[in-house]
Every structure is written in structure tokens, then in C-alpha cells.
């Protein structure tokens, strides 16, 4: 397939509704004196409330692009506007602050803190907010209920299955009520059944809670669950 597959109405193309807007993004990595142009003048708009899958061959720059959207990295050139804010112009500590407020992360390998219980892991991002400590615990418990883990609150990550760990990670990603959830191969380490559970939760977050989600995946079955599928190839979105 050469073009973005759109299963949803084209309303997200409306600029007023765009949550994410990338213009002329260039990302060059230098390795051993050699310059690698991973993203080459890429444009992208993602509407508020959309659920988009980002596909492409391994090494095509999917993670690189997702990290730019999430404010983890800065482009070599181009502008990134998220919810009306030019994040490519923020410095590192401003970006950290911005991520805490705006982005929910879901990683391929869950990345929970092994020394913290499930509910404490979910509480972690709230430590950066003004939410009082009594309320933090409650919010974390609510988020765990959303992902169906109310009976595993006090388990440590090593006591959970991969699918359960990823659900804790999703709870952690939504506990702050972020404007945008980014997920990099969230089902990459999971078996089919657990992967389907995770995809179900993401779908539910999008449909019922209106969360905007960008998910990198190379699993066609996972991508099918998204509203929009985009393909990255040779530094451009097709």
C-alpha cells in the first residue's frame, strides 16, 4: 500500500482540529562521521481524538518520528506544534515539564520500576504534579481499574505477566489525563491474546474517553484496530 489508509472521516484534516502538526521535519543522525537522514522533509497532522498506527520497515524511523512527536528528541529542521505549542523551540527542562503534562508513554518493554508496586508505578507521574498525596493513590487506583487490574494493585512487576505489566504501563500513561498517548510497539513483546487485550484497552481509551493515540507497530493486525494507518518509508510518510 502506498497511501495512508483512512478508515475514519477526513475531519482530522481540518487544521483547527489538529492536535499534532509537523512541518518539514528533517532528522539527521551522525554516525562515524557519516550523516544519516532518517526523516526527510516530513509533514504530518493528527487530529484530536484520532487513533493512528504508524507502520514501516524496521529502521525506517518510526521510533524517531514518535520520539519527536512526544518531545523526547528534537528535529534537525522543521516545526512541531502540539496543541498549539511549538515544542521544537523548548529547551530540555521545558520539554520535560511539557511531557509530564501532555504525553502518556507506552513502551514496548513496559518499563515499569521494579522496586515499585503496580499502584506506585501508576502514581509515579503524579509526583510531578500538584495533586495532593492522598488523592494520588486514589487516581492511580482508578487508572488501574480502567485497565482491569484492580486486583493486582500491590503486586510488583516481577509478579505480573507481560500483558498485565503492559496494562499497568497504560494506567501510568493515562493517570495524568494527557492530551496525547504515544505507544512504541506496545504489543511487540506480547503473545496474541495479551496483545489483543492491550489493543482492546487502547481502542476503548480512544473511543470512550476520546484519547488521541499514536501507535508505532509492525503488526498488521494491531494497525487494523487504529482509525488511521500511516506508512513511513525513505524518510517520508506515504
Amino acid at each position: 500500500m502506498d497511501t495512508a489508509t483512512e478508515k475514519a472521516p477526513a475531519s482530522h484534516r481540518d487544521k483547527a482540529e489538529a492536535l499534532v502538526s509537523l512541518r518539514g521535519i528533517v532528522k539527521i543522525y551522525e554516525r562515524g562521521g557519516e550523516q544519516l537522514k532518517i526523516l526527510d522533509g516530513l509533514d504530518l497532522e493528527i487530529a484530536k481524538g484520532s487513533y493512528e498506527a504508524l507502520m514501516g520497515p524496521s529502521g525506517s524511523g518510526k521510533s524517531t518520528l514518535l520520539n519527536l512527536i512526544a518531545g523526547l528528541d528534537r528535529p534537525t529542521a522543521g516545526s512541531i506544534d502540539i496543541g498549539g505549542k511549538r515544542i521544537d523551540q523548548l529547551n530540555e527542562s521545558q520539554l520535560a515539564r511539557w511531557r509530564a503534562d501532555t504525553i502518556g508513554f507506552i513502551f514496548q518493554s513496559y518499563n515499569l520500576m521494579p522496586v515499585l508496586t503496580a499502584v506506585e508505578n501508576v502514581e509515579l507521574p503524579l509526583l510531578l504534579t500538584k495533586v495532593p498525596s492522598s488523592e494520588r493513590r486514589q487516581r492511580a487506583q482508578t487508572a488501574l481499574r480502567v485497565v482491569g487490574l484492580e486486583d493486582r494493585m500491590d503486586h510488583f512487576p516481577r509478579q505480573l505477566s507481560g500483558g498485565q505489566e503492559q496494562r499497568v504501563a497504560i494506567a501510568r500513561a493515562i493517570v495524568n489525563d494527557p492530551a496525547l498517548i504515544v505507544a512504541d510497539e506496545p504489543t511487540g513483546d506480547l503473545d496474541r491474546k495479551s496483545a489483543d487485550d492491550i489493543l482492546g484497552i487502547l481502542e476503548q481509551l480512544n473511543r470512550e474517553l476520546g484519547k488521541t493515540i499514536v501507535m508505532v507497530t509492525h503488526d498488521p493486525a494491531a494497525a487494523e484496530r487504529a482509525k488511521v494507518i500511516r506508512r513511513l518509508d525513505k524518510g517520508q510518510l506515504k
Partner: protein
Amino acid sequence: MTLVGLAARNVLRNKFRAALTVAGVAVAIITFLLLRTVLWAWTAAADYAAKDRVVTRHKVTFIMTLPLSYAQSVRSLPQVKASTFCNWFGGKDPKHDKEFFGSLACDTETGFTVYDDMVVPPDVLDQWKHDAQGAIVGDVIAKKMNWKVGDRVTLQTGIYPKEGDWEFRISGIYQAKSKAVDRSTFIFHWKYLNDNLPANRKDQIGWIVSRVHDPSQAAGVGVAIDKVFDEKEIQTLSQDERAFNASFLASISAVLTAINIISVVILVIMALVLGNTIAMGVRERTNEYGVLKALGFSNKHVVMFIVVEAIVIGVAGGLLGLAIGYPFIEGGLGRFLEENMGSFFPYFKIDPRMSVLAMFLAVALAAAASVIPAISAARLKTVDALKRIA
């Protein structure tokens, strides 16, 4: 849950490593305290020395004796309030010949007047004066040898051979009034010694100790005393006790400096080992710091996490070091040194200021040691940190 709580929990991640590190810090702290206490014991002894006492001895060496008449000459000087004289007896109890204690033959009338920091009750003193073979002993040595008042004690000496044994009777026990006083000395009548010596060795004294009216003039009095004997066949060297102790310290100043340096080196080694352990833990957890940063934690937070972790180790190691160090240094070793080497270490206790300093250093050095790994972890770009798999 708090950020500090999370940092503290990371310490227990690798319990074995944490235990080793804490033990390492504790050993360093104990060693530091021990060396510092040795230094303190020596220098404090100099500080506690009586300021108004002047010791006069043979100009050439301590081992050579002075004529008895010198004692009278010194006593008649106007600057001298009181004076006594003693001989070093070098006695040993044949039943406990491994036990070392000082034994002195001192002038009966003046001995405890001049050595007034050895406190003897008046009735005991009186009793002693009336027993030609009587001896007054320190409380520590009495307890160790199990000597009771009235006990007969036989001592042997290589310095003063005698036909038959040197027989004594314990008249009483003295208490130390100051920390500088050896609590293991055996004191008996100079007359008893003198009466039992062959004619050619009679009327010789080891040293003269004088108390002066004006402590600030002690050094000057020493000069005045030596002047009296300047033209005599045997010249003297007089020093106030403080100067005497100071000259002793000066003679071992290289040792003191070495101990001083080693005590610091030990802490530096501790910091390096600690820094390495922290760096190892940080390297293993680089990915986690990446996650924290992705979630919005700042570089400062990451530094804080790592430094707090180090501080927890420093506090734990410091407390453990003090908990073991006190009983070990004061109870075990200190007691042993006071009892067995009382003339070198009459008072072997940890300076409380040193334990505060040791604790502070354990924490401060731990924090300092973690700064480099902490900053390098914080500096790492989030995306790169995330890619590191432990």
C-alpha cells in the same frame, strides 16, 4: 510514595551489594575513628598533663641516676613549692609475667603530695607510711591482678637484683583524678628500695618532680634548677610535664603525621569504592532513568535520585560504623590499651566530635562520590538512555 522513598528503595535492589557497600563504609569509619582516637589519646594526654610540675633528670638520659642530695637542692629553691623523687623499679609479678605495669619507688613523705592526681584517702596513706613494705597501686592493675588490701605481692626486677625476693604488701589503691594518669602503677617506699641496695648503689634517684608556685613560670623554673647543677659533675635536664609530653609528641611527629594521612586516605578510598558501586548501579539502571525522564522527571530529579541513594548508603554505613566502633574502640581495644599500655594510652576514648565528623564525612563523601555518576546519568539523552537494556 515519595521521590526520596523511591531512591531509598533502589538501595535495596541488590541486597548483597548494598550490604557489602554498607559494610565497607562501616569498616572505613571504624578505622578512621580508631586512628583518630590514637591521635587524640596522645595529644590529649599532653593537654591533660599537670601544668605546674617540672621533671628533673640526668642530662644524658633517663636511665642514669642522680645523687640523692640533688633532691634537697631542688627543694630548697624558692620557686619550688614541693618536690619528690622516684626510681623506676621495673618490677614484674612472676605469677603474671606477661602483664606490664609501671612500678616506682617514690619518697614516702612527698610522693603523693606532688603526684596529687593519684588520689589516696588520708587513712590509707597513713597506713602505707607505717608499713615499710607497703605499696599503693592503681585501681585497674589491682583489679586485673586481683590484688586486695593486705595481700602479699612479690616482684622481680632486672634493674635492682637482691638476695631474696622483693616483698610487698598492698596498703591501698589510688584513683586517677585526671585522664592523663596511668591507673596501673605500683608505688612503694623509696626507702625500702634504698635500704636493700648494695652500698655502691645507694642514695641514687631516678628523677625529681617539683611543683612550682606559678605554672606559667614552669619552664623558667626548669632552667633555674638546671643552673644549680651546671658546675657539678652530673648535670640535669628539667622540663615541665607539658613540654616533656610535647617533646615526646615531637619525637613521634612523623608517626602522628602518617596516622593523620592514613586516616584521610582511608576515607578517600571509601569514597572511590562507593563511587564505583554507585556508578555500577547507575549503569545497570540507565534505562530506568531514561523512563523517568520520558515521564517528565528532570535532570535534577535524576541527580537527586542517585545522590539520595548514595546518602542512604552513607548514613547506613556511618551508623553501623559507630554502632560497632564504639564498643570495639572504647570497650574492647581501649580497655585493653588502658590496662596494658596505660603509660602510652592512659585514656583511650573516642572524641565525640570525631564521631560526629565521621558520620558527617560518611554522608558527605558518599554524596560527593555519587555526583559524577549522577551527572553523567542525567546528561545522557533520554532517547539514548531508553535504548539501553540492562
